[in-house]
């Protein structure tokens, strides 16, 4: 019977004791920049594609970003072509966190058009992220592969993919032969839109993608043209006395900032895209050039030696306030703004070498992305995560390449064995 007393009393204790649930807390500060290991498996091909295969195109695309580490998938026995029966253990053992599988087929036995069905698979969670099907002509094979890269990139990083975009650059075949070329961002499918016997510099793609402005020396002095990409026709935007150069489009593609000299020093002006309404932005005795419009449409960044040596400043169009932006190093040029206005790309001279650098406009931290010694013309990709620039190959021939904004990956863009310079990047097409 005493059991019962006990039982009752401890029963009461049990009732009054409430269970606590206090978790230990661990604070984790910061992290480490790393590349996502991803295996792009060779696509099953029943069509017979010649040239680079989809998995190679996608691997090279993702590799350029410095955010992915494409694993070697050559020689894999029985590569999967869909998300059925994936051997997660095997891929996990290869340290892959994601894999891409796919197949290329031809619909209706018509070999000129193809279908690519592909899947992105999460190895950690052991599930398919997405499966998609793209259709197009056989000659659009590369474009379709780039579309897959875009999707994978956007899904895993949250940034817009730029693998479908175009670039333009100047080709110097010899002292008397120059051309302005447009190609895929990776250099493929290049074609000339202008051929001249005199130098071409500063080509700039309009943000709406329809036109390219550039400086030509064909009139024996620098003048600015605007060329319509659809029609191929061009108009002379600026041919004032002295130099006309450094065209920079406003974010709405309606105006350009340009540099004129009028028998004196280089100064910045604003002009409408049809050539009307010229307005001087500043007056000074120093060099002011290389305008670059901020995405807010209110500020124009430029380089100037008003402080003694070239540095980057910005001017507000409304109140004419001028602020200095770069303070590290004695020689900073060629400003280029990211689409969100948070990052500034520029050229800096460091220990006698010209390198591409990037500055966070909020924290003002500077990171040098390249090693020089003769790097130039840094241009942002439209997603602000990749950079186009020129460097000297074997110290002699100028070439173009991309570098990721974390500085981890520098990859050349191969477009022939001649001097390639003055690149510009076309916009994202939705």
């Amino acid at each position, binding site marked *: 019977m005493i059991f019962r007393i006990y039982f009752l009393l401890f029963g009461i204790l049990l009732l009054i004791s409430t269970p606590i649930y206090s978790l230990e807390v661990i604070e984790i500060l910061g992290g480490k920049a790393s590349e996502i290991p991803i295996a792009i498996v060779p696509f099953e091909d029943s069509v017979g594609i010649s040239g680079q295969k989809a998995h190679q195109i996608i691997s090279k695309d993702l590799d350029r970003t410095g955010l992915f580490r494409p694993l070697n998938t050559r020689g894999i026995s029985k590569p999967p072509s869909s998300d059925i029966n994936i051997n997660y253990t095997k891929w996990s053992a290869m340290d892959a966190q994601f894999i891409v599988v796919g197949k290329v087929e031809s619909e209706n036995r018509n070999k000129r058009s193809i279908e690519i069905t592909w899947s992105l698979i999460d190895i950690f969670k052991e599930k398919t992220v997405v499966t998609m099907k793209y259709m197009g002509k056989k000659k659009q094979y590369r474009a379709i592969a780039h579309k897959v890269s875009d999707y994978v990139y956007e899904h895993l990083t949250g940034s817009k993919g730029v693998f479908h975009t175009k670039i333009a650059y100047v080709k110097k075949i010899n002292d008397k032969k120059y051309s302005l070329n447009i190609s895929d961002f990776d250099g493929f499918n290049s074609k000339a839109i202008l051929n001249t016997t005199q130098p071409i*510099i500063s080509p700039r793609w309009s943000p709406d993608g329809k036109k390219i402005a550039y400086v030509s020396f064909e009139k024996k002095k620098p003048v600015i043209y605007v060329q319509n990409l659809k029609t191929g026709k061009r108009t002379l935007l600026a041919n*004032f006395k002295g130099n006309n150069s450094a065209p920079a489009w406003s974010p709405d593609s309606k105006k350009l900032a340009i540099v004129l000299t009028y028998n004196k020093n280089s100064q910045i002006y604003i002009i409408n895209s049809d050539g009307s309404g010229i307005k001087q932005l500043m007056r000074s005795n120093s060099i002011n050039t*290389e305008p670059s419009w901020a995405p807010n449409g209110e500020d124009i960044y430029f380089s100037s030696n008003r402080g003694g040596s070239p540095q980057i400043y910005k001017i507000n169009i409304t109140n004419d306030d001028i602020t200095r932006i770069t303070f590290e190093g004695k020689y900073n040029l060629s400003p280029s703004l990211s689409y969100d206005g948070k990052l500034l790309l520029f050229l800096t001279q460091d220990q006698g070498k010209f390198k591409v650098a990037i500055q966070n406009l909020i924290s003002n931290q500077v990171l040098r992305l390249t090693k020089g010694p003769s790097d130039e013309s840094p241009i942002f990709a439209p997603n602000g995560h990749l950079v186009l620039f020129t460097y000297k190959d074997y110290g002699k021939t100028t070439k173009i390449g991309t570098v990721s904004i974390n500085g981890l990956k520098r990859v050349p863009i191969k477009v022939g064995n001649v001097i390639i310079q003055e690149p510009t990047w076309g916009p994202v097409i939705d």
Partner: protein
Amino acid sequence: MKKSLLLLSLAGLFVAGCSTTPMDAPGDPSSNYYGQDDPSTDSVSSESLGLDELRSNVLLTQRSVFFDFNKYDIKPEYSDLIGAHAQYLNDHSAARMILKGHADYRGSHEYNLALGQKRSVAVKEALNSLGVSDSQIETISYGEEYANQECQAEACGQDRRADITYEVE
């Protein structure tokens, strides 16, 4: 009559149909539409231009002023040269000089265009101070576009210059 009218109207249409070439910039005097070709030399005699002198005088045949890296101040060793050219221009009011600035390949193309411009302007201002008026001088710049791309940094001194040229030549 009709033919000339037709020609005239055609010419007019041609000019009108020409692409939007800006003429004057508001608020800025002396902005001219710079023509395509050099004006002909027929109108002025070679004598009045003293071309012989131009081609034989020791100083006048020197046509380049050289500069240090990233600099556009004129070094004292060129004062005689500039003096001689100033003299020539003052003596021959019909002569037209075109100063062409250059830079070496280091730095960006646009900045070098501006740097080359500064160099030609520096020479122009030196000439101004010796009495030469702007009406006789034109300044342009080629930046690094005609520079030697393969020289080694400091050894590119040849490219850091302002060239003196005359319209007649």
